[in-house]
């Protein structure tokens, strides 16, 4: 499967206005989305893994997974495991000072993590693999090979380790999704966990207070990502249709934001 993308940077003061504009354009209410994203890194040589594929065979989506598995073992890649969470999953207590969101003050220590209803064992996960964007394409969109597969709920580390992936870090992405004409428009930003915590060697089992999460971009600006998926990347016709649609959207949003191709190397997912 191929993914065609366009990006734009949205300063925080424009965020609200752009949300309204997108709501009008797509004729739908924004769907708020908060996702945990775990980054895994491949650590084995590809040849070593093939003998131990059996670990995944008892899983339900074995066909799907095996295909992904094969793709993943072709080279060494970072890959993402994405789990949707809701805002109620985050802890509710803690200093309820809204100002701490932007400043990311260190003294706001997370306290009383047990107040949320978050159940790590029931957390659904999805493996998302993204290749480095294709080089030398003349079209003005970023296009890359992608694959997604559902993973079992709960603790994902053993399965990932079995495939030769080790946990690197995790972060949270929050944003709003719009859908228009098969294009997924995701206005989002990356949030880091409160910096006061000690370094985790595995995914957190409890989520901190959402307001204490600090944006990766200190100014709090958002990224607008317009993506469209194409099932068969070798079919020039559909690829062209897809990029035409993206260009149509770019044209429509021209007066608000400038959607453009991303720098290829900044989206490099290869593990070195």
């Amino acid at each position, binding site marked *: *499967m191929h993914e065609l993308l366009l990006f734009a940077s949205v300063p925080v003061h424009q965020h609200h206005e752009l949300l309204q504009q997108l709501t009008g354009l797509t*004729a*739908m209410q924004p*769907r708020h989305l908060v996702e945990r994203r775990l980054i895994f890194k491949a650590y084995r040589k590809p040849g070593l893994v093939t003998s131990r594929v059996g670990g995944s065979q008892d899983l339900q989506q074995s066909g799907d997974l095996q295909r992904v598995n094969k793709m993943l073992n072709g080279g060494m890649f970072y890959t993402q495991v994405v789990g949707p969470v809701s805002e109620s999953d985050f802890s509710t207590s803690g200093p309820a000072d809204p100002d701490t969101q932007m400043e990311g003050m260190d003294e706001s220590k997370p306290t009383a993590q047990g107040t949320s209803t978050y159940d790590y064992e029931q957390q659904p996960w999805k493996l998302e693999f993204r290749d480095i964007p294709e080089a030398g394409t003349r079209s003005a969109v970023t296009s890359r090979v992608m694959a997604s597969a559902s993973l079992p709920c709960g603790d994902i580390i053993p399965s990932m380790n079995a495939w030769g992936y080790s946990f690197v870090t995790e972060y949270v992405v929050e944003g709003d999704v719009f*859908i228009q004409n*098969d*294009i*997924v428009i995701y206005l989002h930003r990356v949030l880091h966990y409160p910096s006061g915590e000690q370094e985790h060697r595995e995914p957190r089992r409890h989520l901190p207070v959402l307001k204490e999460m600090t944006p990766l971009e200190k100014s709090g600006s958002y990224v607008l990502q317009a993506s*469209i*998926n*194409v*099932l*068969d990347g070798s*079919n020039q*016709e*559909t690829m062209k*249709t*897809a990029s035409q649609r993206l260009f149509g959207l770019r044209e429509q949003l021209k007066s608000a934001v400038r959607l453009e191709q991303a720098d290829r190397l900044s989206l490099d997912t290869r593990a070195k």
Partner: protein
Amino acid sequence: MADSFTLPLRPVVEQQNRPDTLPVEIAQINSQWGSFRDVNEEVLRAKIAEEEARDGALSEDGEGESSDVDTTERLEQLYKRRADITQFAMQSHMETTFALDFVSLLLSKHAPRQAETSMSAYLKQIAPVGSLHSEVVNPPPKPESASKDVSTVSRGWRTQNFNSAANKLLTASTRLEGEITSETRYWNEVLAIKENGWKVCRLPRERQALGVQYGFLEATPVFRDRGLASLRRAENGSLILDKGLIPSGSRFVRVHVKQGSNVFTSSNPTESTSPDVETIEQRILQARDSVFEEELFHELVREARSMASSGVTTRENLIRIPASDEMEIQLELVDSNDDSLQSDQNSPQRDSLLADGLAHSIRLLLAFAHRQNMHRRTQMPPPLTSKKRHTPEYHLLRPALAYLQHLSSVKWLESYFSDIFGVLRSSGLEPAEYISDTFSTWKQISLSPVAPRVEALVEKFLRPIQSVFRGQLLTPNGSFAVTIQTNLSGPPFGTFFDVSFDLPTVSDLKSPGRLGMRDEVESAITHLLLLDVVSNIASKELPAKKAESPEPTGSRKCKWDAVYPHLGELLLSSENPEKHKKMKVSLTRSGLGLSSYVVRSIDGVGRGAQERPSLHSQPSTWKSPSISASTPDNGSSMMNFIVAQASHDE
């Protein structure tokens, strides 16, 4: 408007005092007509006659032309005139050419290259370039009077021009003022529309014009795009709703329900207003209703085509659906100001309840389908492929038809149960009441947390409809249940009856399960009730016979023994092998019959030639109360008959 304008635009007309007017005029007359001394009556008469003659000739000339000229002459005249025109044109062309040549020749002295381009070839041949020269000469001084004339004339011209300019300005101001009023009115009306909640936007194709969006965003693209009309301004500033090429009349879907010879018609859902009091808002509403109705019919036709296997036929503006036994539904797209509608309206409103209900339900379901489209649209899209996605037909007719079919089945089953239970009751048995739980699936309250309440409510109608009939049998612990299920939204299509029994006395009885035909259901339940009656008789203890028992075994209980329960046959064995007694029970929807026989065989089980009707008894029947209303009842209950038969001795 001009008088309220205070700026003095017109030039001030000077009242010139001209003391010498009369002498001047006299001098003019003198020079024109000669001295006053020569004027006498004759001269004046001759003058008048001459003028009259000239006028008359002119007028006659004008009349004569139109009458006398026939076609050929006209044609000739036409050619002549054309030739004249051509000639004039050529002459003027020639003159212009000469003038051009002249100027070119004159200029060729100073700018030979430039002038040469506009010189004619002939001129170039005969006159060398730059052979003409011009010089400014001082004109001789004009006389005083001439310069005075010129100044007077120019003054007059200027006054005239000022006047016309002032006129133009004043008319322009009037026009602008009118424009301002109509613009104000236009924008006020646009604002009023906006404040009423309509979406006003710029037209995508015509950036200068305003449009109002009244359509449904989730409709099929054809109809979605029709939901936008431009708001144009009339001369006086009032709004005009310009829908482009779409006909302006409003239409709606009318439902006819034909039951036998009666036809019931649904009423117009949108009250049509008289066209003279229409406001723009009403017009928008009408346009919205019209586009909704047309989409509704479009979707109905689409769905009806997919239902062709159930006998649904479609015409251009008509859909016919055979709903159930003797009911036919017709859906029609009609103009709302149709005359035939008015006459139909006279039929009593009460009877058209079903038609109205149907009309409302298909509209509700279309609105629901719109919401579903909205949900589908806002889901994560599947990856693009070269294949086109098919939009499924909406469920508009199918739920309504399922309801009608189901209702008909439920009514049939109810009437059947009331018949057969009536038969049982008339025979003195006391069957327990059966419980009917109709449309049970609709009564369940299932609130999904995601979907809004309204959608959850409508969504129930799309699911299979289910009704359950439950009852106890005469036999203790015996029960039956009939479930009717109708599903037109997905396979298995149609109505099914799920019949299940629990009759402990008959061990080898199996529930028939899912049945499709009403006949099968009827026979299955009748058979079950027959078994029930038979086992009920068999369980009944009979009073001991006194005469038959010389031995002290008189206390022996004797019973009817169900030998062939499935055939309704029972046996009362006796010591005398010649005198076995047999009773046959028959149960139908219309009646219950009992007849007894004497059987001559050793075990009493044999059938056929050895049977003969019992002497003392007539076969006894009980009919359902509705049938036997006129015939006198035999007064006795079934149990009495059994006991009587058993105690009778041959």
